[in-house]
């Protein structure tokens, strides 16, 4: 098990950004009225945001990062690294982080690269980058977690189209000798990689005309090979089996108990799935917040978007014992225990 501790790293701030175009489940023409009601009640999504044509991950990421850099009054010349967690980069190559570095006008002394992860990506991104920070390592870093899944959704797939939404986040981390340790556990299972994937468009199945032919599946679902395929039941069973014991192990390893945690911010996968995890861990509802009703499942951006949605206040600093947990694509699951102190969390902003 990949259990790691990051020392002397503080989270200074979090900023999130979503497209302004709101898509309401009640407007989804393939759902009957009963299906709309059941979906909103059980899966938890009422609305989500989709990018308009031409807007990419880099655009949302730059907006979130610029807002954060301004709010923290950081000098861009001090930023050592800009890392983007995404599965929807602007181009197949190079990493979208380079484009963001350019748009933010960060200096050439700044390293930029992408990490290809989704649901668990925010936590694994924090683990990766915080382990690269320290006295003789990086001092100031921006971690971006952004996805625009709407581009790869089939309108005729009821299991994905109403579930996912687009969103971006930027998190500022700084070397700080007084910062408390951050604890991480990360795990993966590549056997089930095809429980959530896009079949064509990579090097294994290069996209061609046949990739865009619509195929009909059971239940009236239609999609082509460039659309997201989700085996909801496999992801559900994986998540409710793997996530609760990982959080219990994390608590044991960092010598804390679930009762001492102020908030559990989890990946906004699907409300019934997250509620099963919450009930198995016997966590009270007020310490296990949601943003899925407003923004849907926003992949790697969903944990920071939930933090912004619940805690966002430009005039307050957040302090709290916090567990973060992301789970899904890979399959992978990752949890972190972080004592936030003096962290500026901005409210969710609309991309303009």
């Amino acid at each position, binding site marked *: 098990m990949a259990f790691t501790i990051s020392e002397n790293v503080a989270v200074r701030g979090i900023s999130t950004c979503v497209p302004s175009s709101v898509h309401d489940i009640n407007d989804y023409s393939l759902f009957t009225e*009963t*299906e709309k009601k*059941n*979906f909103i*009640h*059980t*899966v938890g999504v009422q609305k989500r945001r989709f990018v308009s044509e031409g807007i990419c991950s880099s655009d949302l990421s730059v907006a979130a990062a610029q807002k954060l850099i301004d709010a923290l009054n950081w000098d861009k010349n001090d930023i050592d690294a800009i890392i983007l967690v995404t599965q929807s980069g602007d181009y197949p190559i190079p990493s979208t982080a380079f484009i963001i570095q350019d748009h933010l006008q960060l200096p050439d002394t700044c390293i930029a690269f992408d990490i290809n992860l989704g649901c668990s990506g925010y936590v694994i991104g924090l683990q990766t980058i915080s382990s690269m920070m320290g006295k003789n390592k990086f001092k100031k870093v921006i971690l971006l977690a952004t996805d625009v899944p709407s581009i790869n959704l089939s309108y005729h797939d009821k*299991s994905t189209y109403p579930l996912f939404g687009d969103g971006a986040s930027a998190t500022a981390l700084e070397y700080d000798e007084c910062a408390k340790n951050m604890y991480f556990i990360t795990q993966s299972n590549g056997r089930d990689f095809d429980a959530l994937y896009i079949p064509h468009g990579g090097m294994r199945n290069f996209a061609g005309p046949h990739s865009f032919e619509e195929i009909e599946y059971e239940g009236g679902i239609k999609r082509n090979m460039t659309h997201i395929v989700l085996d*909801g*039941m496999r992801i*559900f*069973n994986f998540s*409710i*089996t793997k996530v609760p014991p990982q959080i219990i192990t994390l608590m044991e390893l960092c010598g804390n108990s679930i009762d001492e945690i102020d908030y559990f911010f989890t990946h906004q996968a*699907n409300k*019934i*799935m997250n*509620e*099963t995890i919450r*009930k*198995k861990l016997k966590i009270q509802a007020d310490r296990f917040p949601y943003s899925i009703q407003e923004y849907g499942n926003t992949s790697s951006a969903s944990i920071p978007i939930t933090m912004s949605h619940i805690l966002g206040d430009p005039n307050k600093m957040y302090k709290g014992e916090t567990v973060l947990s992301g789970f899904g694509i890979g399959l992978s699951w990752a949890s972190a225990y972080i004592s936030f102190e003096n962290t500026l969390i901005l409210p969710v902003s609309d991309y303009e």
Partner: protein
Amino acid sequence: MKDSIEDFIVKIENEFENTPSGSLNPDTNFRNDFEWSSVNALILFSMINIEYDVILTAEDIQPAHTISDLYQIVSKKLQ
């Protein structure tokens, strides 16, 4: 299995808005009698996992039609 089939039925009724107390019995065909869908399957699987720590798959319940069939499948998994 810690629960009788009556207890099992009460727990199912508690999970679904449109199934008032006393509306289900062991012979109720859950596929026809309460708008069975993949979303409702998740509600049922969630309750069964929380209450009995049992994981069900779509294949597991394929042969099941009645509440009694479901109860037998969960009981068997607990043996």
